[in-house]
């Protein structure tokens, strides 16, 4: 599972960067910063044998998840109290970004609980198969998430 945290973090970063384009000013800066941090951390995680700054990254993921839940629930909750709140980010993008953040968080916690770094080099074919599966899953999720944002023009997911 060496490539999964890095790829999931890059995927979440891409969705948050894409979501920031149509977001209201209050949500734009946090989404932009979160997206940049996730992409940079993902690249670092891929280039190292162990996830970098794992405790801090797990904490950051928890904060991002809280923000995601607030972003998902806030418009509905405000509407029930007679207010109209829109963050300009579609729920699908929030949900997919949150799911990828959750995956990163779970993998980091597992890594921290195990408390050891796998130093044995992975067999090449196993590496290729694992990275291929992770890339395919993350790419499908990211495309769905980005297609729902204003960057994707809320395009329908048709084949052509």
């Amino acid at each position, binding site marked *: 599972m*060496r*490539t999964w945290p*890095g*790829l999931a973090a*890059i*995927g979440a970063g*891409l969705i948050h*960067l*894409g979501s920031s384009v149509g977001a209201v000013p209050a949500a734009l800066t946090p989404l932009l910063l979160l997206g940049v941090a996730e992409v940079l951390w993902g*690249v670092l995680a*891929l*280039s190292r*044998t162990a996830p970098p700054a794992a405790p801090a990254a797990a904490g950051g993921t928890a904060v991002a998840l809280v923000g995601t839940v607030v972003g998902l629930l806030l418009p509905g909750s405000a509407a029930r109290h007679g207010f109209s709140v829109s963050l300009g980010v579609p729920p699908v993008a929030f949900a997919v970004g949150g799911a990828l953040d959750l995956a990163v968080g779970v993998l980091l916690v597992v890594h921290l609980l195990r408390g050891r770094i796998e130093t044995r080099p*992975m067999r*090449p*074919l196993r*590496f*290729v198969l694992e*990275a*291929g599966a*992770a*890339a*395919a899953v*993350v*790419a*499908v999720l*990211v*495309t769905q998430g*980005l*297609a729902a944002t*204003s*960057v*994707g*023009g809320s*395009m329908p*997911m*048709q*084949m*052509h």
Partner: protein
Amino acid sequence: MQINQINPGTAFHKSPNRIIATLFGAVYVLVGLLGFFWVNGVPFAGPGDGSNAILGIFEVNPLHNIAHLLIGSALLIAGAGTAASARAANSTVGALYLLLGIVGFFLTAPDGGRSPVNFLSLNVPDHILHLASALLLLATGLGADHGATRDREQPEPEAQHV
């Protein structure tokens, strides 16, 4: 040792970067060639009407096919070389595809992808393929063959006898 001796580098089956570069290179060259069967009446650098999709899935135009051929060739050449060259090619092409995966959404947003801005004739399956390629190439380029550097793979020159 002769200066033009083939440098064996890291064995193919022991290098994830060489495996991925060769595999992706072959697939992209094949897709680039196949694509020309689906571009009848499609502008060189503009969107089609949906009938220009390889196997009815991935939309292409002549420029898109040429890009596939160039990228595929670069990966094939790098994969046939050393692990260090394959690693460099995978990282570079992965970063380019990641950029295209994002920029592609901006190109297809206006008019559902039928605007002339969509100069590569991209559609949603193209985005998925580009992002998946980017992530796999980056994961392999950044995460595998850490010991493979150009210096380590080049054979040491023999000492000069004076």
